[in-house]
């Protein structure tokens, strides 16, 4: 189970609204490489992860991703709170506003709604971990892209924190993949699905 702690993993204190930037950063909430997809990917995959230590790692990184989702949402919320109708129009925020007012709703920067097809849970440890490593890199690239568009230091700092965490998670998933491979025949790692018992019996 989970228990809420009344704090962000990294502080967010934004004083200048910026609806244009909010629309871009929103992608890391509900977009294809966002934190919602990341958390659900790892927390869904863990049930069939053959190595218990790696199942633990998926639980812990999945949990951290939920905290990252909260940081991204806090950034978007603080960039859009108290917007006036004029600021909404000037900032190009009217198409989001008409459906959600200033509420948080998971979608990509391009307006594509969040969908579970953004990630896979394949029930095969190697397949899943390779997906997880790719996911961390894709999220890092997205943060790189966001950082090129940000001039506000108050927005920059939490985004930089989130970017670095992608790199750490990539490293840990790489180690997890090696742990899975250590349990397998090193002459043929990819022969079968190590989590599917019928394959193991062959």
């Amino acid at each position: 189970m989970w228990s809420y702690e009344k704090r962000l993993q990294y502080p967010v204190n934004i004083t200048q609204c910026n609806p244009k930037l909010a629309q871009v950063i929103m992608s890391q909430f509900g977009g294809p490489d966002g934190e919602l997809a990341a958390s659900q990917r790892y927390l869904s995959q863990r049930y069939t992860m053959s190595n218990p230590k790696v199942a633990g790692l998926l639980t812990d990184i999945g949990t951290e991703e939920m905290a990252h989702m909260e940081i991204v949402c806090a950034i978007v919320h603080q960039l859009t709170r108290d917007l006036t109708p004029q600021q909404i129009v000037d900032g190009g925020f009217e198409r989001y506003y008409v459906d959600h007012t200033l509420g948080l709703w998971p979608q990509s920067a391009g307006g594509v709604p969040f969908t579970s097809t953004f990630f896979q849970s394949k029930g095969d440890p190697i397949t899943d971990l390779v997906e997880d490593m790719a996911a961390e890199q894709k999220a890092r690239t997205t943060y790189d892209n966001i950082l090129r568009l940000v001039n506000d230091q108050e927005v920059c700092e939490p985004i930089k924190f989130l970017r670095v965490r992608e790199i750490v998670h990539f490293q840990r998933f790489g180690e997890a993949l090696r742990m899975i491979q250590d349990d397998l025949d090193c002459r043929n790692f990819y022969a079968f699905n190590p989590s599917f018992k019928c394959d193991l019996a062959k």
Partner: protein
Amino acid sequence: MDVMNRDKLFACIMATSFVLDDLRLFLDTHPRDQEALDYWRKVEKVRNEAVKEYTKCYGPINMYNVNVEDRWTWAEGPWPWEGRC
């Protein structure tokens, strides 16, 4: 209310919690790393003390530490996503 002390304690909780968040992932894949285990013990102690002191003076950050008196205070704001301003 001593705002300076409050900010200092909260910063200590934030910093030590992050060390533990990061160490937890490292230890998941390096469960016998003695240096990391020692670091965990050291930081965990500092964090526990800071959380205890903060909870006593300024209220709980975790629901299990709510001190129940005449009313339920857990759901009172401000919430973390609101920021300082």
